[in-house]
């Protein structure tokens, strides 16, 4: 019976030993275990052996980073990290409540930077042309040649209308020439219509 009791208390201590070592038990519980450890050698053995195991582990397997590597890491941290830290401090300053003037200045500066950046980006990027691009075929108008043909046709018509056959002969306009001229003009006008829209015209 006493032995069962002892086994039970040892098992209980094995479970609570970690909180006992941390001092995280209540005052009364700490006092309970302190008294029992004094009275029960087996509890003292459990406590001492646990400490011994952990000490052996600690001393046997401790590792270290190289001194020079450590110094380099510190330099990288405090120099490289300081920029990150400044940004984080700046941003956390925006979120902080309280009426400090520095917070308002931070906010104004933050918004200002964004506005300026947006303006610069806007000015530097190509804007879409609101006017639809006119096909280069439109400029293949050969206006001079067409004008000449129109003048020829006009003169031919005038000559024909005025019954001035000589003038008509001079211009050497046959009916085929006339048809060809009219046909050419028609073709050009049709192409022009297809490739331009009403707005651009």
């Amino acid at each position: 019976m006493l032995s069962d009791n002892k086994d039970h208390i040892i098992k209980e201590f094995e479970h609570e030993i970690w909180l006992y070592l941390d001092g995280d038990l209540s005052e009364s519980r700490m006092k309970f275990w302190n008294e029992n450890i004094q009275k029960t050698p087996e509890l003292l053995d459990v406590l001492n052996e646990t400490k011994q195991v952990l000490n052996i582990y600690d001393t046997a397997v401790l590792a270290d980073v190289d001194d020079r590597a450590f110094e380099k890491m510190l330099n990288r941290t405090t120099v490289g990290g300081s920029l990150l830290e400044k940004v984080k401090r700046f941003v956390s300053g925006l979120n902080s409540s309280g009426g400090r003037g520095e917070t308002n200045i931070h906010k104004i500066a933050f918004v200002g930077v964004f506005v300026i950046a947006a303006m610069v980006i806007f000015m530097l990027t190509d804007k879409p042309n609101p006017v639809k691009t006119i096909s280069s075929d439109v400029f293949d108008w050969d206006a001079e040649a067409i004008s000449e043909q129109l003048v020829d046709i006009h003169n031919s018509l005038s000559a024909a209308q005025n019954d001035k056959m000589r003038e008509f002969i001079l211009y050497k306009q046959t009916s085929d020439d006339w048809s060809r001229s009219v046909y050419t003009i028609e073709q050009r006008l049709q192409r022009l219509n297809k490739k331009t829209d009403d707005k651009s015209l």
Partner: protein
Amino acid sequence: MGKLLEYQLISRSKQGDASAFGALIKDYRKQLFTYLLKICNNRTTAEDLFQDTLIRVWSGLPNYNEQNKFSSWLFSIAHNTAMDSFRRKKVRSRVIHTDELPEFTDGMNPQKEVELKETKDMLLDAVNTLSDKQKQVFLLRQHGELSFKEIAELTEQPLNTVLSHMHYSVKKIRKILREQNVI
């Protein structure tokens, strides 16, 4: 390091004093590096994690609350840094073997060195057989000096579960040390 000196170093570090920060970290350097080395499996990775941890600690100092124990805060950051890295790389943690650890014998006699190396091997083998969660609890306790309540919070496990993990881990290590007549 005394609490007052640590407090002064923390205060100066918060103001951007790099040399104070170096002195502050130096006191935890071996424990911090050992923890990362054992949890991540590889010395190069451990050095990367150590660097990442230092940067997070340095940049997080303005938000550090002096009411909390500095070592607990430091090792919480180290643990989260390691876990973030594992999540990214999906690498299982494995305690590395002594071949990958530097010799740390401080000029002992050769016989002692051999004994120590054998003990190291046994201990690392024992820790290697633990589950990831058991290993995390054990290493955070041994190297991070976190309380079990802090470990429970950090690893998002109930306190009793954490205590069980620790109990099982130490029981395993104790068994091996007994078998080898170390204790």
